[in-house]
């Protein structure tokens, strides 16, 4: 099962509707400081159900919605969709292609959709848990965090092994 596409709009610095196509293998994201590379990684974690504020560098829901700049008005909604190839049915769901969407409004409300039908956050989490997509903390290594696994407490490192079990 692999990631085919990422659609981002209104999420953090992505005020414009933006699409990234992915292929199996290695995709590199490059560019100068402050342009939005880590924001791309954040959008992936976010649509997979992440809500830890420190990990997303967002203290409240509002922080992930495009806040505006001196040349562009703020937006009211952040929306990220990932399209996954499911032809081998990694995900326990009928479709050959699965689209998961998450939206956030300034009210603080979050919406989740799977193939355009509204679901609850727990449905999204359960779906991915069975396929182990991005559920393991070792599937994401944040900027400046690479050494963290070395300074974990022994019990937290044990938890990492347990995740892999």
């Amino acid at each position, binding site marked *: 099962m*692999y*990631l085919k596409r990422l659609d981002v709009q209104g999420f*953090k*610095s*992505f*005020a*414009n509707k*933006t699409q*990234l*196509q*992915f*292929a*199996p*293998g*290695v*995709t*590199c*994201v*490059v*560019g*100068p400081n402050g*342009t*939005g*590379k*880590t*924001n*791309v*990684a954040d959008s*992936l*974690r976010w649509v997979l159900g992440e809500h830890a504020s420190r990990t997303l560098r967002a203290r409240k829901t509002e922080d992930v919605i*495009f806040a505006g*700049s001196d*040349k*562009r008005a703020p937006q009211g909604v952040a929306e990220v969709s990932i399209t996954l190839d499911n032809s081998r049915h990694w995900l326990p769901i009928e479709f050959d292609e699965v689209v998961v969407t998450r939206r956030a409004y300034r009210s603080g409300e979050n919406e989740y959709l799977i193939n355009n039908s509204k679901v609850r956050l727990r449905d999204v989490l359960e779906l991915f848990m069975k396929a*182990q*997509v*991005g559920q393991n903390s*070792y*599937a*994401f*290594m944040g*900027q*400046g*965090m*690479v*050494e*963290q*696994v*070395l300074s974990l*407490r*022994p*019990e937290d*490192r*044990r938890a*990492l*092994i*347990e*995740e*892999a*079990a």
Partner: protein
Amino acid sequence: IRERFRTTFKTVNQEFARYFSAFFRGGTARLELGETDEYGLPGVEIVAQPPGKKLGSLALLSGGERSLTAVALLFALLQANPSPICVLDEVDAALDEANVGRFVEELRALSERTQFIIITHNRRTIETADTIYGVSMGADNVSRILSLKLEDVHVDE
């Protein structure tokens, strides 16, 4: 459950030792089960010794050596239980060119089973990419993405 942990621990340990030796072209590393906590579960400690050097604590390793050791453990976890997707954000920042070379070699091997999305400034890492996306931000402070070929990329740092 305890059985599964033991099996997984054994696999991760073997893979960690293997990746460490590949990255350091020698040396030894292993995971050890340490003291048990209040639930009777042992913690996991890391022992790492670059080739020819005296065994010391992890704190004695250099910045780049620590990065490599951490990546070796990460790759061992991925080998033991492949995640379909893995996102790495500038994990090669502290590595010199030779070490980046070894890192990408193992990365390519793992990319058979795991789809990697890698944020990097390093040219050697970018050279191994199947797809490259360039992110830019204009005067309106809005991010834009452009699909790039290797020849278009001009990072240096």
